């Protein structure tokens, strides 16, 4: 990709580029939070408290992590809106639309898993709402319509690693938030950009 239409940066503010940018800010600040945070139900909350009050620049780094995550989860749907309004999902870009929706889902999952790590009331009960929904999944959830699985084998159990939110939940959310989802996102983003290139560049000025 060498030539792109002039005036690309116009009234839609490079929303895709900004999503990458906010993601990078999270990737840069996340590891510093990981230095002080231990995903142990007895420690997690006080570790975050330490980050906010004791660790030099800890509060600043956590704030940057949180606020750029917020902006990312705002930007990605807006980028999708821009793509739709400019019909950029039409040939030859269908595949990139599909990759994009997967990126959207992963972005929401990233936020969901991250939100629960501080293990405060908001995190705990917010995640509980999500867990209740999983429990009520038709067929696969123990409490959902037409459920076939017992409560120690259903999708809710797999998600939480137990029947209630506890240490196993925190461990797997930590793994998902810090390794699995960011890794998948980074890889898919690469594929997303490669696809833009393969489709012959952007569909038009942004």
């Amino acid at each position, binding site marked *: 990709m060498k030539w792109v239409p002039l005036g690309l940066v116009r009234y839609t503010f490079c929303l895709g*580029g900004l999503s990458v940018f906010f993601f990078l800010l999270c990737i840069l600040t996340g590891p510093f939070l990981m230095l002080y945070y231990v995903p142990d139900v007895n420690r997690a*909350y006080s570790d975050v408290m330490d980050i906010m009050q004791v660790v030099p620049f800890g509060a600043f780094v956590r704030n940057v992590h949180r606020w750029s995550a917020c902006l990312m989860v705002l930007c990605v749907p807006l980028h999708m809106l821009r793509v739709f309004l400019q019909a950029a999902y039409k040939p030859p870009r269908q595949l990139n639309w*599909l990759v994009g929706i997967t990126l959207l889902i992963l972005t929401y999952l990233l936020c969901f898993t991250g939100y629960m790590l501080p293990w*405060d009331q908001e995190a705990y009960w917010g995640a*509980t709402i999500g867990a209740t929904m999983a429990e009520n999944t038709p067929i696969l959830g123990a409490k959902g319509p037409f459920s076939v699985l017992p409560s120690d084998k259903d999708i809710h159990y797999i998600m939480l690693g137990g029947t209630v939110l506890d240490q196993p939940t925190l461990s797997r959310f930590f793994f998902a938030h810090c390794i699995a989802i960011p890794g998948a996102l980074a890889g898919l983003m690469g594929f997303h950009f490669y696809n833009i290139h393969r489709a012959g560049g952007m569909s038009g*000025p942004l």
Partner: protein
Amino acid sequence: MIEKVIEEEVPTTEENKERLRLLTVVRGETLRNRDIYERPPRYELFFPNFVMKELCVGLAFLIIIFTWAYYKDAPLYELSNPAETPSHIKAAWYFVGLQELLAYFDPYLAGVIIPSLILGGLYLVPFLDPDPVKGIGRFAFKERKFAIGCFLGGYVMWYALLLVGMFFRGTYWSFYWPWEDQSVVKATEVALWSFPLPAGIAFLVCYGLLMLLLPAVIFQDFFFRVGLIRYFITFNLFAAMCFVPIKVLLRNGFHVKYVLVTPWFNI
């Protein structure tokens, strides 16, 4: 398009013309796949020009985020306590739309079926749109009224639910107008009623038939253009989307709890 750029830059000697012809022949296949529409006439280099512009926008946001992070701390509430359900639970703001749906639908609908339909519908977008060229790379609102109408409708609904959940819901998820005091716990709401089973079935069947047949009858051209399968999927999704505001209306206007009550699930 490529020809245009090359014509502008390369002196059109006979030799160059031959080169261009060869290039087009050699890469003809790929070129045709890539450039099936007109591009704006003026181009700039991706690197460094375009990348620099994006970086400038990034820099502006870096300043905004740093200022924001300096003045406003990310919240940290009290330690989690499984024994004490707060009266005022709100999910993270980007999920409050789904939480707001919980006020109208059972969790299996609000948390599983509706999100799955949204995401499934989004995945299907490129295959449901029957027109492969219209409006690419520009905002063609007039030519794509139905597509853009549906998409914007859903998009606006998602954020409308989110805003209501954020700002109009207080203790125990009761509705509060902005001028009402959210610390005053509201009395339990009016008794709700559900449609009897036959009425529920009749309502849903009529609704489904109406949503599936009416557009085909009124917009016959459209129906034949998209084809039966696409039409069927599109209008099922459309009917599901329109059902959300209908249920909101039925609940708030007529105190209907469920439209359909069965031993296995309720809608």
